[in-house]
């Protein structure tokens, strides 16, 4: 089944890096923290995780490249926060897949009803 293509999923190719960025437990925890308490500094994000600041920074940049988080200056420190619009786009993408099945069902309906 190599290189197959789901016709249900053809509308937003840039969602691939988004979902890839989500595919890591540490990154998901970071997003969960930012969701609950963001914006947060790297120091705060590292607390209690058992993960080095350096690793946290690397994960934040991966999330940043996927557009899931962004950083800003707050006084002297750099803080990170969620990019909620990007996550909203991810949700819309999934809604779109369901909608594509709706479309396919409508086309099937028209097909069998018009061509007995």
């Amino acid at each position, binding site marked *: *089944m190599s290189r197959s*293509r789901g016709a*249900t999923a053809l509308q937003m190719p840039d969602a*691939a890096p988004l979902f890839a960025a989500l595919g890591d437990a540490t990154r998901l925890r970071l997003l969960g923290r930012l969701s609950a308490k963001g914006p947060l500094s790297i120091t705060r994000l590292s607390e209690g995780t058992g993960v080095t600041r350096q690793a946290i920074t690397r994960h934040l940049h991966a999330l940043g490249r996927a557009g899931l988080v962004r950083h800003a200056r707050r006084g002297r420190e750099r803080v990170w926060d969620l990019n909620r619009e990007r996550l909203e786009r*991810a*949700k819309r993408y999934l809604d779109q897949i369901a909608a594509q099945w709706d479309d396919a069902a409508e086309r*099937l309906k028209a097909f069998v009803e018009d061509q007995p």
Partner: protein
Amino acid sequence: MAVKTETPTDTKSTDRIEKRVVLRAPRSRVWRALTNAEEFGTWFRVKLESAFAEGKPVRGRLSIPGYEHLTLEMLVERIDPERYFSYRWHPYAVDPAVDYSSEPTTLVEFTLEETDGGTALTIVESGFDRLPLARRAEAFRMNDNGWAGQIKHLEAYVA
């Protein structure tokens, strides 16, 4: 096409997408539209290269404008005449540079039932929870306390 249709109803969970629609056509007609590869391709918009047979892969180029460069590959699971048809494929397989063959597939199932005035068709695509990214997305949802609703369908198709 100006066809009066009944809105398919949806049932969504993290693992499956479900659609149900009533078609004003005999069950045998709907069955042919689903399981004759040429007819399937007409409404689904794919030019399939061979017939459907249990256990056999079928592939073809999409005929959706703008997506003709993409190839769809389906692995037929079960054909239970005039009642049930199922196949597997890779959802969200949109990057021509990626080999999706090692990733879990989703199962697409069509179930037919006779009903007043026609045929009730249920389409289910399931198995999204087995996708590794989906599992992580589910963990994400568990961690999150604010926008579970916003991200609700993420796990349904990291696909």
